[in-house]
């Protein structure tokens, strides 16, 4: 029997986490650690196991196997001391629709030993103007802000955000991102799930790409882009698209342009680009598609 000792500064440590529903494996042994103050993204398509992983860490579901530690507690017991220190934004949940926004915050503030000032939280999530509106009258985006406000009212060290911007229009997404980045600058640790690549790239310090219950890549967005693919050089030759992938773009470009100059040929629509996380992700998911079942 091995002794498992997660790094002490880890807000979350998970090793070989497993979970099945009715014989279907939702998590097939995932491992990762989230250090305090970090924004960690779980990125993957729907059904990859992101929510299962997060709900185990939030104390909602029991794991079938593996180890997990959240702020030093075993989330399987979901101890009250752990619940004092985490904030949760679920994918689907409601707040009693008959309360006002401010009352809902007051209600939740009453559950915590050291809550934050309610009006301060309303300011942070941008609901000050809506504070006396009934919850049922809020728009989708405003309800999501309310979810976030209620998750923050207990002044948590660790915040779980399960697909915080799904269904948002681009403007709402931008403002949600700003809010999340503001949280990070307050020193909160954040575990974020998303199926939006730009979101992971913009917000997360590190990203675990999860697919069919397994982590298939883990690193900073830059690392994921850097080690997965080479630089692309594109241009048109006789009206046809030519794509060159290379690890040595300087040399490749030099050869290409030298030849073009020598022959008096124009490299039309010449473009040199680094792959985005999206390219890497799609490639990864494709690559692993054949691997499943």
């Amino acid at each position, binding site marked *: 029997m091995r002794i498992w000792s997660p790094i002490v500064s880890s807000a979350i440590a998970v090793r070989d986490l497993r979970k099945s*529903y009715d014989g279907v494996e939702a998590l097939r042994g995932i491992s990762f650690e989230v250090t305090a103050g970090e924004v960690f993204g779980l990125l993957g398509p729907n059904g990859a196991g992101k929510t299962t992983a997060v709900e185990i860490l*939030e*104390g*909602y579901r029991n794991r079938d196997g593996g180890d997990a530690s959240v702020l030093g507690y075993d989330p399987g017991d*979901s101890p*009250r001391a752990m*619940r*004092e220190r*985490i904030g*949760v934004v*679920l994918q*689907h*949940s*409601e*707040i*009693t629709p*008959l*309360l006002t926004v401010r*009352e809902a915050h007051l*209600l*939740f503030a*009453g*559950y*915590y*030993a050291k809550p934050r000032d309610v009006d301060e939280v309303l300011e942070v999530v941008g609901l000050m103007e809506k504070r006396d509106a009934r919850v049922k009258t809020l728009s989708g985006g405003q309800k999501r802000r309310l979810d976030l406000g*209620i998750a923050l009212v*207990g002044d948590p060290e660790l915040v779980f955000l399960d697909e915080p911007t799904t269904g948002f229009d681009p403007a709402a997404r931008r403002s949600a991102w700003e809010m999340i980045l503001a949280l990070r600058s307050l020193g909160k640790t954040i575990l974020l799930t998303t199926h939006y690549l730009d979101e992971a790239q913009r917000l997360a310090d590190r990203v675990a790409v999860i697919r069919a219950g397994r982590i298939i890549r883990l690193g900073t967005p830059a690392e994921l882009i850097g080690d997965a693919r080479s630089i692309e050089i594109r241009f048109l030759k006789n009206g046809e698209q030519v794509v060159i992938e290379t690890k040595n773009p300087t040399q490749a470009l030099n050869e290409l342009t030298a030849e073009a100059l020598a022959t008096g040929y124009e490299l039309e629509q010449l473009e040199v680009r680094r792959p985005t996380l999206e390219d890497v992700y799609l490639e990864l998911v494709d690559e692993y598609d054949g691997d499943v079942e």
Partner: protein
Amino acid sequence: MTVLLHQLKFEQRVFWRSREAAVFIFIFPLLLYALLGSIYGDEIDGVPAADVLLAGLFGYGAANTAFGGLAITLVIRREAGILKRLRSTPLPPWTYLATVLLSTLMVFALQAVALLVLGSLAFDASMPANPLGFAGAIVLGVAAFAGLGVGAASLIRSAEGVSAVVNVIVLPMAFLSGSFGPTREFPVFLQAIADVLPLTYFIDIVYGVYLDGESLFADPKALGVLAAWGIAGLAVALKRFTWMPRER
């Protein structure tokens, strides 16, 4: 304790703000009493009709509030993810359930007082002959029907269907148990069904303390049957109650 009072304050605020709940749970029994009180004559079996009906409607109110109202509230909150969200806050789950129960008791106690006031003003109904026993019966009834309500909430799957299911249980039960008038003329098989229903026994107990001035413990069989139903509901709840929506 502080958390309990905090939660109770919000439970009450939410209840009274919900017009559907306030009308369906609180006003409806009063309305029925006003209606039935005007239909029946002066006496039922030599007892003032207003008193007999009032005893029956205390029973209907308890079943409607503690069983029906509680089951509906819990199922709707569960399916909306409200219970799930609460589960990850430091609020202890038992504190939450205790609060919901207390809030229900407050609503029904108030309703019992309102029924008494309506009765004495409109129909010259009696005040409880054994007030302490009457108060005890109210608490007991709420406890037993709340046990059944939580049990039912654990079995009912969808928020859309819960009102219908609850009414299909509560209304016939109230009818058979004599909430809306005497059942002596009912066919034997209906009386046989009534003989196992918890509401029949709760109304017996209420009748004893309210009209006959008996002790709350005068009828051990009635207490036993009522308690057994409550415990059965609680047993189902302990086995099947969940905080998570049944989405999976």
